[in-house]
Structures are given as structure tokens and as C-alpha cells.
């Protein structure tokens, strides 16, 4: 039985797709079979972020209407053979797919995978419902700023009506240097505000690590943070990445100053 987890946020552009892809990759690296189901019929889809868009032949809509079999639509990641994407299809086909349709497709993937992540669109309308109704668990992604938190708060309250097994909070784009100088809220504060359990913190990444299709550089801060998040999910631990860590101490203060001056 696969764990079916919807990645959601309310607000767009906070990193849902990025989190889905990199968290999926981290779990795949632990030897688990992972599928990313894209239900965001918009731009910057999972296939693009994972760099497999050229390999896409069929998509979710094709599976739903019976143009192809499920296995034909699943796209395998080149580097991680146990990581797959089910692409969403184009915007104008979105209305051909109901929550029930997607649910059926996902049920059929149950035995093939350990984790199925459902990447949801921004907003809290039809697309949101379609995504959440397929899941047993949810991850709410928020960035440490007011507009993102307002939307996350709304989403958390709406998720309560879905009878999910768990709702976890991931704080994305955390900047330790800003937190230490009190210019950014701490993830622990955000957890209290949203009354949702923190399962991961992901740092703001300077370098462009996405759309490379090959995952994160192994030693990067993000890679460490994603690894912790993946372990927290899989082993039910709660080891949270400390974004402030590298800015503490003597060398840390130098790093902080460098950050400030650029």
C-alpha cells in the first residue's frame, strides 16, 4: 500500500512542485518506490522540474479517457529508476478529469509504489479538491511571509474537512541569516501560528538547482534538509533542518556578513 500525500499551499509559487520533486528524489534515494502525480494543469509542471518533459508521450488525461494504459503514461527518472512522474496534461483538458477519476488512477498505482505525491495547483477551488480527495495525508508548504502564511492558514482549516490521517507543515525558503537578525520568522513560530506540526524546513537556495533533472548536489544544504524531511516522513522522526546553524559561531558571523553585503 502506497502512502498518498498531497502537496498543497493555497498560494502559488511557494515551492510545491519543487518540494514534491526533491522530496520524491530523496525518498527514492532511500530505496523507496516513488511516484509524483501532477494534478496542476498549469505551467512549470513536475515533468519540467524533473527534466523529463521530452519523454512525456501520454498523460493523466490519456489514462483517464482510456487512450493508454497507466504504465505507458508513467515517466521514469533517468538517474533514479524507482522515481516516476505521471504528467498532468494540458490546461484545456483539465475539465475532463474529476477527483474520482484521479482517485481511481491512483488506486491502481497502489501496489506499484511506496509513496505517491500529488502536486496540487494553487488556489482552493476544483483543482484543489481534485488533488486532496485522492490523498490520505497532506503536506502544507509555506514560506515565512505574511501572504503565504495567510493562505496556508486557510488551507489548513479547509483540510480539516477532508478527514486526512495527518497534515504536516514544511517551511520553504528559510534564511538562517535573516532569522538570526530577527528579520524572518522562525519555523517554530510558524508552526505555532498555523497549529500544524512541522515536518521539515528547507533553506533558500542561491544556486539554480531545479530543472536540472538530476536532483540536488549531494552536499548542498538543501540536499541535507530534504534528506531529513524524507526521513521524518518515512521513519516518523522529527529532525528539523536548522537553517541558522551555518550562521552561528565565528565562521558563521563571517558568512552572515558576506550575505548581508551581497
Amino acid at each position, binding site marked *: 500500500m502506497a502512502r498518498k500525500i498531497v502537496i498543497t499551499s493555497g498560494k502559488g509559487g511557494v515551492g510545491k512542485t519543487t518540494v514534491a520533486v526533491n522530496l520524491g528524489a530523496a525518498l527514492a534515494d532511500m530505496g523507496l518506490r516513488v511516484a509524483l502525480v501532477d494534478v496542476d494543469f498549469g505551467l512549470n509542471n513536475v515533468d519540467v522540474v524533473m527534466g523529463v518533459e521530452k519523454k512525456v508521450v501520454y498523460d493523466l488525461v490519456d489514462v483517464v479517457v482510456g487512450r493508454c494504459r497507466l504504465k505507458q503514461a508513467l515517466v521514469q527518472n533517468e538517474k533514479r529508476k524507482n522515481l516516476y512522474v505521471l504528467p498532468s496534461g494540458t490546461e484545456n483538458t483539465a475539465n475532463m478529469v474529476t477527483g474520482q477519476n484521479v482517485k481511481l488512477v491512483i488506486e491502481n498505482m497502489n501496489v506499484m509504489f511506496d509513496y505517491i505525491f500529488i502536486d496540487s495547483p494553487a488556489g482552493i477551488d476544483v483543482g484543489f479538491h481534485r488533488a486532496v480527495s485522492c490523498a490520505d495525508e497532506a503536506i502544507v508548504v509555506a514560506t515565512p511571509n*505574511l501572504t503565504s*502564511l*495567510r493562505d496556508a*492558514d*486557510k488551507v489548513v*482549516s479547509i483540510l480539516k474537512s477532508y478527514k486526512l490521517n495527518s497534515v504536516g507543515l514544511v517551511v520553504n525558503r528559510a534564511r538562517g541569516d535573516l532569522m538570526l*537578525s*530577527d528579520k524572518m*520568522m522562525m519555523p517554530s*513560530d510558524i508552526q505555532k*501560528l*498555523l*497549529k500544524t506540526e512541522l515536518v521539515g524546513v528547507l533553506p533558500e537556495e542561491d544556486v539554480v538547482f531545479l530543472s536540472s533533472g538530476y536532483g540536488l548536489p549531494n552536499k548542498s544544504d538543501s540536499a541535507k534538509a530534504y534528506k531529513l524531511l524524507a526521513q521524518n516522513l518515512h521513519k516518523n522522526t522529527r529532525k528539523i533542518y536548522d537553517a541558522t546553524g551555518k550562521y552561528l559561531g565565528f565562521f558563521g558571523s563571517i558568512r552572515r556578513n558576506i550575505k548581508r553585503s551581497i
Partner: protein
Amino acid sequence: MKKKKINELTRVQNVLENDRLNVGKGFNELLANDLNKLFKDYFDFSGLPELKIDKENGVYRVVVSLNVSRVRAFNILPDEK
């Protein structure tokens, strides 16, 4: 510096709590008018019912108070339409 952070945190907290309550500007007035209509069927009183909404740990306590001079007898309750 610490003070700044606490202010920011309080601000975010207030915004979220206001969002949760979803109380617009005219909310109190609307509710008071509706309650007025409702209570008028049961009691004699002057003025509008007074509303007090407190928040504590993210939970809202709504207290309605009004000074009633007389409880209406059942036979003067309005007929169902």
C-alpha cells in the same frame, strides 16, 4: 532587535486570527440586527443586543447581552407564515 521580532510575530498572529474569524467591518452590526429581530419575538427590550467577541488561544467566545423588561407570553408569538 528582539522587540522588532515580537512585534512582527504579534502582527502576523493578529492577521491570521482576524482571517479566521472572518469578521468584516459591518459584521457586528449585521449580527446585532439579526439577533434583534430574533429576540424581539421572545422578549421586550430597548436598544440593540450587545455583542462581545473575545479571542483566547485562537478560540472565539461570543457573548450576547441585552436588558429585557418583559418575557413575551406565548400567545403573542408571531404566527407561522
